[in-house]
């Protein structure tokens, strides 16, 4: 089974066309294995990205060095998955 330990979901608040372009370039970088939940298309809309733990540092440094504001929306995807699994097991027992 694939684990998502340490994966985070970042919400990026894009402010300029240039930042949009930079984010689009991240999307094309296959090595980072980013999972875009909301794609970079407009400065009016946030961009949500699930970032694998291995790529977190790279992505955060990239955003910070380009003055692109972001917040951590989900701190650890696996924590949520574990909660969900526990809930399903409890349901199953019930």
């Amino acid at each position: 089974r694939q684990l998502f330990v340490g994966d985070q979901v970042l919400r990026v608040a894009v402010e300029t066309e240039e930042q949009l372009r930079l984010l689009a370039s991240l999307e094309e970088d296959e090595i980072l294995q980013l999972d875009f939940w909301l794609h970079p298309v407009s400065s009016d809309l946030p961009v949500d990205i699930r970032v694998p733990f291995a790529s977190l540092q790279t992505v955060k440094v990239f955003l910070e060095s380009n003055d692109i504001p972001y917040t951590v929306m989900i701190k650890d995807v696996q924590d949520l998955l574990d909660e969900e699994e526990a809930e399903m097991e409890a349901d199953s027992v019930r």
Partner: protein
Amino acid sequence: ERGSKSFNFAAYHTLETIYQWMDSLVADHPSLVTKLQIGSSYENRPMYVLKFSTGGDNRPAIWIDAGIHAREWVSQATGVWTANKIATDYGRDTSLTSLLNKMDVFLMIVTNPDGYVFTHTSNRMWRKTRSRLPGTTCRGVDPNRNWDAGFGGPGASRNPCSDSYHGPSPHSEVEVDNVVNFVQSHGNFKSFISIHAYSQLLMYPYGYSCNDVPDAPELDSVGRSAVKALSTLFGTSYKVGSICKIIYQASGGSIDWSYNLGIKYSFAFELRDTGRYGFLLPANQIVPTASETWLALKNIMEYVRDHPY
């Protein structure tokens, strides 16, 4: 849990449980609900549609599908709740009863069964189908980029490893092809509604183009009325607009295909949530989500019933 009366709608369920529950729903409402198999998935799982009909021959109909993106679990769960709601409210809710006395409703709860099973067994974040392609180890196609509507255009990836890979050709995915064949052979659908989950939107065509469709003003008005009804329950806020204008340009989507086929009332929902949980919406939010969505769905269906074309 497998009987329709003891089923827990406030829980996420496996494909097997959902399919068994569908049988119990049919058994409990034999004069209203039938289960049709419209084909099989890539991994040979049956693809079922629930037909709600009070009789008549090839009546005008409404199509609703859920779960084309596997990881959007509240979509499939809402499909289950909605099927039960339609079956139990018929004969009690005057408006729904009049709708079903005129029209049929077809509801597909798990449009991407292989992907759904994969989210239960291997990768909870899986979105695509599970088809294999020669020349790559990456599997699956985004089934909502695979329809013959601006196929391969902006907002879809040509990279088989991408989560928005459009596939080798339009309708290459058997799951998409099965729905296409069913809808085309029926020939009398008046509305086509696709249920996704994430970020609370109600959208109409187009996604492949940012130009307005000819019916945009009417679709916008229907959509606004629907989300107004939805928000009366918990105050949930939805945005309404064309796919291209309120989310992003995305080619090869199902409702663009249905609209171009002549099904005017084509809509796509993005259900809760705002992002705190992503695709991991807690199970205790299934029923609230489905309940509010029902108000919007009913609003659209009533409009379709009252505006024949």
